[in-house]
């Protein structure tokens, strides 16, 4: 037993050695080539010096953006009008499929539910905490605890919550927290949570809310701290207190930040893939657009349909990002 452990540890060590060497080599090549180019381009004089400088500084980024984003994006749009292995043009058939197939309609409805409910709940919770936490003794600890899930991967968060939702037959001791709480509260036969439609979709949204509330809290707290003193003073002199102060002064003053937080979480939600993939693999009617896109492309190997779903995702994100950018610029102009 101990012998085999040593052997495996040896294997791990050599595995580590090989991979570490690979990384070191890659970094050395990358930084070496860069240093060489810097050295050579620094020697250049006269008319070519300036264009050369610009090329050296900007070239790599532009090249990466072209190869990694622009060309593939255009190509995906093109592939979305082709059949599964991209050998035959099919016009808009893939899009017709996406909007008429009952299965996909479910996916679209779920996605819509996700982008409306999860971001709104997250933002409202984040705002509430940002408003309430401030006078608390030891507030840094509470903030840290609420903020912490943001550092955890969606895969890790999903496993955490899958364990919370674990359901056993009610006659046996429960190991999932949610079932235990439900039974303790007098619900004698709680369902198998992840199999209950449509409850399961909302239970998956909980994970999104759990990870992003801290983000909303931190950004909104900073915005509240930035409200000019005289405005609040004036409102107080006029007798605004409590709820009135909140709805007439605080919220209007941080409106653009609220919109930025909301749209940022919406965009993130629209692209969410990891949670659904880990929790249910899209089964039990929980599938969403980003996961369906992955399944179609890399499980079913239907490049046409996968591409069409990616394009739909892009078109859905587009207005949100546009609005987000406009608000971000406005907010920056105010500051």
């Amino acid at each position, binding site marked *: 037993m101990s012998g085999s452990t040593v052997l495996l540890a040896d294997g791990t060590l050599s595995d580590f050695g090989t991979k570490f060497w690979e990384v070191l080599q890659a970094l050395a090549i990358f930084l070496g080539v860069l240093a060489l180019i810097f050295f050579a381009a620094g020697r250049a004089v006269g008319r070519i010096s300036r264009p050369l400088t610009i090329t050296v500084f900007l070239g790599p980024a532009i090249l990466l953006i072209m190869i990694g984003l622009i060309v593939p994006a255009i190509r995906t749009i093109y592939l979305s009008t082709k059949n599964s292995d991209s050998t035959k043009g099919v016009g808009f058939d893939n899009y017709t499929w996406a909007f008429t197939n009952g299965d996909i309609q479910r996916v679209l409805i779920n996605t819509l539910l996700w982008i409306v409910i999860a971001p709104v709940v997250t933002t409202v919770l984040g705002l509430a905490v940002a408003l309430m936490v401030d006078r608390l003794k030891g507030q840094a600890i509470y903030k840290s605890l609420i903020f912490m899930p943001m550092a955890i991967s969606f895969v890790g968060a999903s496993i955490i919550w899958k364990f919370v939702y674990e359901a056993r037959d009610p006659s046996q001791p429960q190991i999932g927290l949610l079932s235990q709480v439900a039974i303790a509260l007098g619900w004698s036969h709680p369902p198998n949570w992840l199999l209950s439609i449509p409850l399961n979709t909302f239970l998956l949204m909980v994970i999104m809310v759990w990870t992003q509330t801290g983000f909303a809290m931190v950004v909104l707290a900073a915005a509240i701290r930035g409200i000019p003193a005289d405005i609040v003073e004036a409102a107080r002199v006029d007798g605004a207190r409590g709820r009135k102060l909140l709805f007439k002064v605080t919220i209007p003053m941080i409106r653009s930040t609220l919109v930025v937080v909301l749209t940022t979480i919406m965009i993130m939600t629209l692209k969410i893939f990891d949670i659904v993939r880990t929790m249910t693999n899209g089964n039990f009617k929980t599938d969403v657009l980003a996961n369906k896109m992955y399944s179609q492309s890399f499980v079913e190997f239907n490049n046409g349909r996968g591409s069409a779903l*990616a394009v739909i995702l892009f078109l859905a994100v587009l207005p949100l990002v546009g609005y987000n950018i406009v608000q971000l610029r406005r907010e920056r102009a105010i500051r």
Partner: protein
Amino acid sequence: MSVGAVEATKAQPVKKRHEPAVKAIRRSFSSPIASFLVILLSVVWTIPTFGLLVTSFRPEGDVASTGWWTVFTDPDLTLSNYQTVLFEATFGGGTTGLMPYVINSLAITIPGTIFPLVVASMAAYALAWVRFKGSDVLFFLIFALQVVPLQLALIPLLQLYSSGKIGGVQLFPESLQLTGSYWPVWLSHTMFAMPLAIFLLHNFISQLPREVMEAATVDGADHFRVFRTIVLPLAAPALASFAIFQFLWVWNDLLVGLTFAGGSQDVAPLTARLLQLSGSFGSRWHLLTAGAFVSIVVPLIVFFSLQRYFVRGLLAGSVKG
């Protein structure tokens, strides 16, 4: 909100000026009920992670038969789950534990952070200080590319890595065999990071004091020298903020890793392996919880030790939309 703006709000005089206003807002929402709600929420927020952590230290039999909360009345803890999960586990169709995947995640994340950091800071410097015709338009175009969800690039990129071709153009010989190495994952993370990285670093680098730059140029330094000796040191806080975010982003990523590294133990990151495990042995919670905690612990350490940079980066807009 640029990094600079956030710095400004942190400065003392500004803070002082806002103090009464902030207090007024605070006062109207602080009550025993509010305090209670916040404490309740932070407890509820922490319990799921705590349950995972506790479970990962309980023996197999206990985990399968009783809830983790019974540990308070019947404490019985062990490290054997971690031993199994890291070094021995022959579970879920694999032959090794998670250790190779932990190494993969590190091997992916370190270059996956350094590559985009270097390339983007160079581009940001050029766009901010080596002004040329169209540099503003170019900056805006790069910034606008944030609208492209990475899903839109996956299929053609996968084809590129395996064949060397994109849309019929041969970019590199097929014999280069990128598939199966870390390169597709490194390159993809670098490419996808570009728009946001250039945008954030440009915001900071363009705010550097003009006099310092000009003084260096008068002394005869060329752009390469200015970049190395002045820009990089001065931009260190922004670089650090971005590096932390990129590190967490790459470490926590599933989509890029799954698409370009598959599930092989030679290259696949921890997240991709955990996804497989959660499907194939969803009921062996003593192992799954230990495995999940192994992947969570690195970002948690980064988060708790560098929380200030983390928050600063967040306020500067380092959230991938």
